[in-house]
């Protein structure tokens, strides 16, 4: 899937700078397979949108090469790339009806108006909006506009569809609904999708693979599950999901296991990264992988902790704990009947499996 020779889209050593000093994208290599749903995830200013715009042809790489279907596309103007783009805020043309909007890519390709209308209606049917064909975009709700934009980007059957934070303007419930809809369209049409978002939930639920961007570099490129459960570095661990980062020093390394000395004890962890014995480590522990040690249960790591705060979340409780030299260690416990006993100031013991403790390198810039 990731082999470069059968890749559909490739970035090769792509660099981009706007002012000649700071690199917005630095030495980016990326291969996207045909039919893949790849998400570029990262905080704002991390270079993900710039990558998308370079792919669409609105920006040009300062150096390096981008290929599409095996051919470099640097010399191809945007309108000849046959890439559908769904923009943030949709960019529906307000002076055209919904149908005219969707038929636009066909009519500029000299498709006869009868055929264009027919195909546009079919595309609208695909997003369940056939009944709104004669409306103006301004008369539609955000979710409906979003679907029109989707139909418009798909109607000319592009090989590649780019989406730039397409769900950013929708409320939470609609966003989740649209996530499924986009995912199902992708499965049905088999089109390659490159999706840009800063919302990790979106990235995890929709994508085949996620590329996490930070400071113009891809920090990790892997499946959502791997991204969450085996983050490659501290940035990814903290950016994706909730994370407790415990500072410590690497004491010994074995095969697939290591020991990290932390304030008040030793943690058995999975070593990730290059740091050798004696180097600083950040041990990443997900709050939901922290267990309250009951009598008779045994865990690879057990630590004493004091409850600083109990936050009620309905289906679960979050405990803010003082432990391992941290005052804000978070543990997530299910709101089971027995768990009403947690009170502020209470002492308890927490445990977690060594496989859930990832010893990551401390990032160089702190």
């Amino acid at each position, binding site marked *: 899937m990731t082999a470069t020779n059968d890749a559909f889209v490739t970035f090769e050593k792509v660099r981009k700078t706007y002012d000649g000093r700071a690199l917005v994208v630095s030495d980016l290599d990326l291969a996207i397979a045909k039919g893949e749903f790849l998400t570029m995830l990262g905080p704002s200013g991390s270079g993900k949108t710039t990558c998308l715009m370079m792919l669409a042809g609105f920006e040009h790489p300062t150096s390096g090469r981008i290929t599409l279907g095996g051919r470099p596309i640097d010399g191809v103007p945007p309108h000849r790339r046959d890439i559908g*783009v769904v923009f943030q805020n949709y960019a529906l043309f307000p002076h055209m009806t919904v149908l005219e909007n969707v038929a636009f890519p066909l009519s500029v390709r000299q498709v006869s108006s009868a055929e264009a209308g027919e195909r546009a209606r079919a595309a609208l049917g695909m997003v369940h909006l056939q009944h709104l064909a004669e409306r103006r975009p301004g008369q539609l709700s955000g979710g409906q506009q979003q679907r029109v934009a989707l139909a418009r980007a798909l109607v000319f059957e592009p090989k590649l569809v780019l989406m730039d934070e397409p769900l950013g303007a929708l409320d939470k419930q609609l966003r989740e609904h649209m996530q499924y809809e986009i995912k199902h369209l992708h499965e049905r049409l088999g089109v390659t999708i490159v999706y840009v978002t800063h919302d990790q939930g979106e990235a995890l639920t929709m994508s085949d693979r996620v590329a996490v961007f930070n400071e113009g570099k891809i920090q990790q490129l892997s499946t959502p599950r791997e991204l969450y459960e085996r983050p490659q570095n501290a940035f990814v661990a903290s950016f994706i999901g909730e994370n407790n980062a415990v500072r410590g020093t690497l004491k010994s390394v074995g095969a697939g296991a290591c020991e990290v000395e932390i304030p008040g004890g030793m943690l058995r962890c999975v070593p990730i990264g290059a740091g050798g014995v004696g180097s600083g480590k950040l041990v990443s522990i997900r709050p939901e992988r922290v267990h309250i040690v009951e009598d008779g249960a045994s865990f690879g790591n057990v630590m004493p902790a004091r409850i600083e705060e109990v936050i009620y979340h309905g289906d679960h409780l979050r405990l803010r704990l003082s432990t391992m030299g941290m005052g804000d260690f978070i543990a997530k416990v299910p709101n089971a009947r027995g768990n009403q006993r947690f009170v502020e100031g209470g002492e308890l013991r927490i445990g977690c499996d060594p496989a859930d403790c990832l010893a990551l390198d401390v990032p160089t810039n702190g």
Partner: protein
Amino acid sequence: MVADETRNLRASLRRAERRRTLRGLGLTLPLILFTLVFFIVPIAGMLVKSVQNGPMPDILPQTSALLQPWRASAERGVPDEAVFAAFAGELRTASQERTLPELATRLNFENAGYRSLLMATARRLPEAPTGTWRETLTGINPQWGEVAIWAALGRASTRVTDNYLLAALDHRRDDNDRIQATDPSRAVYVASLLRTLEISGIVTLLCLLLAYPLAYRLATLPESTANLLMILVLLPFWTSLLVRTASWLVILQREGPLNDALRWLGLISQPLELVFNRPGVIIAMTHVLLPFMVLPIYSVMKGIPPNYMRAATSLGAPFFTAFRRVYFPLSLPGVTAGCLLVFILAIGYYITPLLIGGANDQMVSSLISFLALQTLNWGLAAALGTVLLVITVALYFVYSRVVGTDGVKLG
């Protein structure tokens, strides 16, 4: 019960809203009053003046009344003795009450020479007629036996008249009150109106051609550069119109810098005639009015998200197709507003054509000013103004029908 509650709720809503409404009104009231007093009232006054006939029904009430059946008759001769008698009596009264000059001025518009006829007749009018009043008056001046003189008196005898409006369109009523074209040698108003429309149209078109690309560039440039260029666009606003016009006079004249430069470049061998003719007027007016075209177009373009063009391009439209089908239609409200603004301003232009134009480049406003200030023919001046107003309003409606009213946005 429920109805009561609803009523109470409505009442308290009204109370709550009243303060806000009053405050809002307080803020806008000065402007509303100003507009009313200095804009609506003068325009209404002008409209009234253009159909107001003058003082005759008040000064010669009986004659005016008696002339109406005479005017209605199909075959007109000289009016009968009753009219002559009433006229002679009222003429004497008017002479004593010193209202005669006012009447004479009005009648002079109908027929040059009426003033002296009237004044001389009043001076020589006896207490009692010798024979009939008709014989007496024709004795004083044989003109009183002519239909034309009475027809003129008849035209002035009503309170409302279409004479001025007809005159503004180069038409008049003849002695039988039939509408006729004015003698071509004296027909100046329609030609002047057409010239005004032509110059305004050309200036509007030139402004549009110059302003549209400029506004597009301004709207797509980064903010700081755009602001700098905008100052250049607005600079003319900060200079007096008179100064700007005078400087065009300097630039465009035979020995002026423009002709010098063109000759130095070898583009022309003889200096171009650019002042006191049509090209000069058009160049200067285009320059003066350009900001009024740039600003509305720019403000509309500024509101078009850049994503629209990108979206159109990514969907397969080459730049010009994208521009034609997406950007241009969205910028049309600005174009509409700019064209209307420039055209309406150009129609009323006065100083620039006066200073830079020749005799054949004068616009209708200079005629209006001539009529109002030199000949004191306020009725005709008002009628010309009314015709101009009607043309402007009609153009606005045609234009908004063609382009769509919903899009018109001034600023």
